[in-house]
């Protein structure tokens, strides 16, 4: 087990080097330069040249890459050109926002998706089963930004039930030690803040969670169908174990295994979706930040931010693999 973890962590190194090279090369291939971006409305060729010099963009490429690696090795991700704040500061504030949103979306998809998938399988071939299948297909067919706009339009603007933007009531003044607002509210023992944070989370989480919901429901259904015909389940039933216990102890538990892999695979999708969801709901997270950075040619943000996202993605998948091993003793990492 330990050897497996170490091996997987070591595999991270070439991936990180590869990603850093890829990002570095890609950024240099972009037309336009951060100098123009930085100068915005007032750029002149002289000013552009001086900015290029200031940011070391006139040095040879390999020197630039070496500088980049060196600063990375010091744990310094650099400073955003557009906001003049350090990348670590920005990530510290924005990552918790995205993390909270992604977690809420994932929870929503699991809490709703697993029961749907389970009952669809139990009633295989029923109207509910067909409905769930069609529903989940429609779910993955709706562009996330379209769903977001419609949700916001309906629940915030027309009905006025939920807020349309941001993470909390801006008039409130609350301490945020962790920047995870739900956790902060719990730590402060503030039920008002908790409700406020939840209300703000709802619409974006539903928009972002719609696709995982459909996937989770389908996977659960398929897994339950598989497990139901396994020998040990048949044996248990034959022995006269009450159906409720068979379902909870054998069927659902084993069916949850594939669901856990989905979570890992969905991380990338959630981050893609976060780009759009965060844009629509003015959610100060990492997805919209990186998107803006691409438009603004904010090199340091791209170099540091995308690397960070890639690391998160790889780590989440590692964790998923590990938890898979823990849940399922049949898998041994001896290879």
């Amino acid at each position: 087990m330990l050897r497996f973890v170490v091996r997987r962590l070591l595999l991270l190194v070439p991936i990180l080097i590869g990603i850093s090279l890829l990002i570095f090369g890609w950024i240099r291939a972009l037309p336009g330069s951060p100098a123009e971006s930085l100068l915005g409305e007032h750029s002149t060729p002289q000013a552009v040249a001086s900015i290029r010099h200031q940011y070391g963009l006139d040095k040879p490429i390999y020197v630039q890459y070496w500088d980049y690696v060196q600063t990375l090795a010091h744990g310094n991700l650099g400073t955003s050109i557009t906001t003049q704040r350090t990348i670590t500061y920005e990530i510290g504030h924005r990552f918790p926002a995205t993390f909270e949103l992604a977690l809420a979306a994932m929870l929503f998809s699991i809490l709703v998706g697993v029961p749907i998938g389970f009952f669809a399988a139990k009633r295989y071939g029923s109207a509910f089963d067909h409905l769930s299948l069609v529903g989940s297909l429609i779910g993955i067919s709706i562009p996330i930004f379209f769903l977001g706009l419609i949700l916001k339009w309906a629940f915030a603007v027309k009905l006025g039930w939920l807020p349309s933007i941001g993470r909390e009531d801006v008039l409130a003044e609350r301490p945020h030690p962790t920047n995870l607002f739900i956790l902060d509210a719990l730590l402060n023992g503030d039920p008002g803040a908790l409700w406020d944070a939840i209300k703000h989370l709802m619409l974006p989480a539903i928009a972002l969670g719609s696709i995982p919901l459909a996937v989770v429901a389908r996977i659960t259904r398929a897994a339950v169908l598989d497990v139901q015909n396994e020998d040990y389940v048949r044996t248990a039933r034959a022995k006269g174990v009450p159906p409720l216990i068979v379902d909870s102890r054998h069927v659902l538990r084993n069916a949850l295994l594939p669901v856990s892999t989905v979570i890992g695979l969905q991380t990338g999708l959630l981050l893609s979706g976060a780009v759009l969801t965060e844009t629509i709901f003015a959610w100060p997270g990492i997805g919209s930040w990186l998107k803006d950075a691409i438009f603004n040619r904010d090199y340091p943000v791209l170099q540091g931010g995308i690397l960070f996202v890639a690391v998160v993605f790889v780590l989440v998948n590692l964790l998923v693999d590990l938890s898979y091993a823990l849940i399922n003793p049949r898998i041994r990492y001896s290879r």
Partner: protein
Amino acid sequence: MSIAELEAADVALEVGGGGGLWSEAWSRLRRNPGALAGFALVGAFAAVAIFAPLIAPHDPRDQNLALVGISCCPGPSAHHLLGVDPLGRDELSRIIFGARFSLLIGVVAVTVGLSFGLLLGAVAGYLGGVVDSLVMRLMDIMLAIPGLLLAIGIVAMLGPGLFQIMVAVGVANVPIFARLLRGSILAQREADYVLAARSVGVKRRVILVSHVLPNSISPVIVQGTLALATAIIDVAGLGFLGLGPQDPATPEWGTMLTDTDRYLQSAPYLAIVPGVAIILSVLGFNLIGDGLREALDPKLRGRA
């Protein structure tokens, strides 16, 4: 992208070899109402795309600024069944012609992803060793960057434009196809019939082209169909972020949605109509892909 990837990966593990697979799959597909609905949707979609000039009541590029009042835009009328857009163009005709672009975008994007992905996957899977590790690590790296960001990044590099968008979405699809085909080939490589062919001295290349590839292809077809669906959504997402085609007169659904974000409050149907068109076409491909997956799944064989 990852849903399709996930589902197709499932298929890859499950699909076995054998010749009767296709005819049996077809007969099961015909009995699947969902897949039939999918074929109907995609068929209608393709028909609209092909016969657009005959069906559309107006030229989708004809502006009629006189129709656009001070606040945009007049709603549906007898002359313009779905109303007009902010430049006074007939919305219905734009939706009809838009089907062409969505279909084109989907097909080209998937073709790009498919051809490069298949090439890399086949090479990696068949050669194995260092080549395999190198190619697969590269694919891992690409997968570690969120697909939409990767696509935005590629468009930023190539500049905006219809073709560039298709390439970007296609490239973001490459690792998925590569992994899929590689896994499938690895499974096939050790199959009895391949071992048999090798033992009688058939050349490696011949084995690859005439035995392994055909038998590895069914998950790719499923994946291709599902990827068509996601490609349409991804392109719409890029359009929504302002990276649509260069010529704004192009009636592309995603871009039509983007524009109307500004008019959501004054003319909501301008957002709803292209949105629904996207959902229906994507749903069509998803239904077919889903039906194919079930039809090709050997585990489900024999089950109705």
